[in-house]
């Protein structure tokens, strides 16, 4: 057994080198990150359907195309049947009313500040916020065509890459395993399996959670409007976006609230109670999500400490922006599985 003691640093160095190469590769080919990560998400999400069709004798690639076709058709039908997500007048409102309302509110804030906070009387807070906001909006408007083009390319690339990932993923994984030296082989087999289980379970669990929390929010908005007579415009759009943003742990609901606020600013004649009611709905939805939905659908798929989750989100957001927020948890879970496997093997060798 003595020989194996000598292998421990080698193993750790080997794994660290592999991780470093992968990270370097990801950083080098940043353009491909969004389509590849998106394709992986799509492949994982559709996998149960693909497996169900495969059991009936269909080839894996064909099964993926059928499941993708069904999903796209369902989305198309839903978008036709559901009320228009954003009425043209609301879109107009976003263009005209949001800047006006922000200007008015900032002016009101300036007057209040001058009368109540005399120490800040000479500081033009409102003007500075306004300039920054309009600069930001201007930058978005300038970059929008480029972003739209990239988004279109990504949208086309994602299903294409996902198709090849689903069709050839298993043989690719076998080829990768074949290259692994004997010393690491069993550990790598277990690691691949556990990462696959954790990420697959997490993504599917989160998808169900997002759909359910979106539906809960929609129901609560309907109740608020029907029972309390507080108007809740664009409720389908706000619930859908909030449901999607809920994919980002902890900060997702806040982004949902910001989106709803911006949309409500753009709607003419809407009372302030509507916005407060929306915040209430979001808070209650978040509560129901945390207490009922998440424990039921996520179980122990990704058992990460809340502090780890927050750190992963901060690092992910800092390095890759919004995409980083989306992939932070699966990546953190993968790193945890790798660390656990390496540590378990190390413990055995030391014993």
């Amino acid at each position, binding site marked *: 057994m003595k020989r194996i003691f000598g292998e421990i640093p080698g193993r750790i160095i080997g794994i660290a080198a592999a991780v470093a190469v992968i990270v370097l590769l990801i950083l080098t080919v940043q353009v491909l990150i969004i389509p590849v990560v998106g394709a992986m998400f799509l492949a994982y999400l559709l996998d149960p359907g693909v*497996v169900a069709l495969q059991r009936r004798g269909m080839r894996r690639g064909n099964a993926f195309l059928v499941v993708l076709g069904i999903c796209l058709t369902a989305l198309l039908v839903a978008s036709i049947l559901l009320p228009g997500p954003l009425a043209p007048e609301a879109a107009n409102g976003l263009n005209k009313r949001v800047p006006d309302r922000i200007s008015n509110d900032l002016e009101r804030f300036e007057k209040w500040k001058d009368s109540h906070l005399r120490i800040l009387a000479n500081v033009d807070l409102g003007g500075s916020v306004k300039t920054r906001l309009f600069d930001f909006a201007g930058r978005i408007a300038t970059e929008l065509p480029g972003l739209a083009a990239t988004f279109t390319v990504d949208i086309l690339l994602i299903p294409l890459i996902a198709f090849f990932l689903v069709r050839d993923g298993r043989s690719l994984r076998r080829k990768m395993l*074949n290259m692994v030296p*004997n010393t690491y*082989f*069993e550990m790598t087999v277990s690691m691949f399996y556990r990462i696959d289980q954790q990420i697959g379970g997490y993504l599917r669990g989160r998808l169900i959670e997002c759909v359910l929390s979106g539906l809960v929010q929609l129901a609560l908005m309907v109740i608020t409007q029907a029972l309390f007579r507080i108007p809740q415009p664009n409720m389908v759009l706000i619930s859908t976006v909030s449901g999607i943003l809920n994919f980002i742990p902890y900060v997702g609901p806040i982004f949902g609230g910001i989106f709803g606020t911006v949309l409500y600013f753009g709607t003419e004649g809407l009372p302030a109670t509507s916005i407060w009611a929306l915040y209430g709905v979001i808070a209650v939805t978040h509560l129901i999500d945390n207490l009922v939905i998440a424990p039921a659908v996520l179980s122990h798929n990704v058992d990460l400490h809340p502090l780890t989750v927050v750190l992963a989100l901060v690092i992910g957001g800092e390095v890759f922006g919004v995409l980083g927020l989306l992939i932070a948890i699966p990546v953190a879970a993968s790193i945890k599985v790798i660390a656990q496997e390496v540590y378990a*093997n190390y413990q*055995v060798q030391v014993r």
Partner: protein
Amino acid sequence: MKSDGLWSNIFRSKRKKESLADILHHIPVFSELTPMELRVLEKVVHMRNYRSDETIFVETEPGAGMYVIQNGRVNVLLNHKSGSPIILAELEKGDFFGEMALLGDSARSATAIAQEPCELIGFFHPDLIEILNLHPRIGAKISLGLARTLAERLRYTSEQLREIWDIRGSQ
């Protein structure tokens, strides 16, 4: 002679595949599988080559699955307090070992070392789960074969234990 070479070249790959299925068919865990089902299994298993004296797995290490010896010889050893390991079994072509790890996360109960250059067929827990997911009928047959093999091993261990007790009792 030349024609023999030609024929052997034409059928080389086919023969290789058949021999893999043949070997697997003689393993009790897979003995219930039809030739067609063995073809499915062939696509899932991993071929591994080991040098002489190379460690295949170590006692107490987390195990991932079982191995079938396609070529070569393997020694299964058990660590002993005295420091010198006890040879539990000397296995050769067509034998299999490590099947307990197929059931999931369990530590290896012995160490396996290649005695000479070996070609092993590896079948692991994730492979079994994949087969159970995609081909439930094949998965059920393998699970039944595995249960039968483990029951057989348990029966054998019980008999050995009884013999030891009988010897101790007679002393």
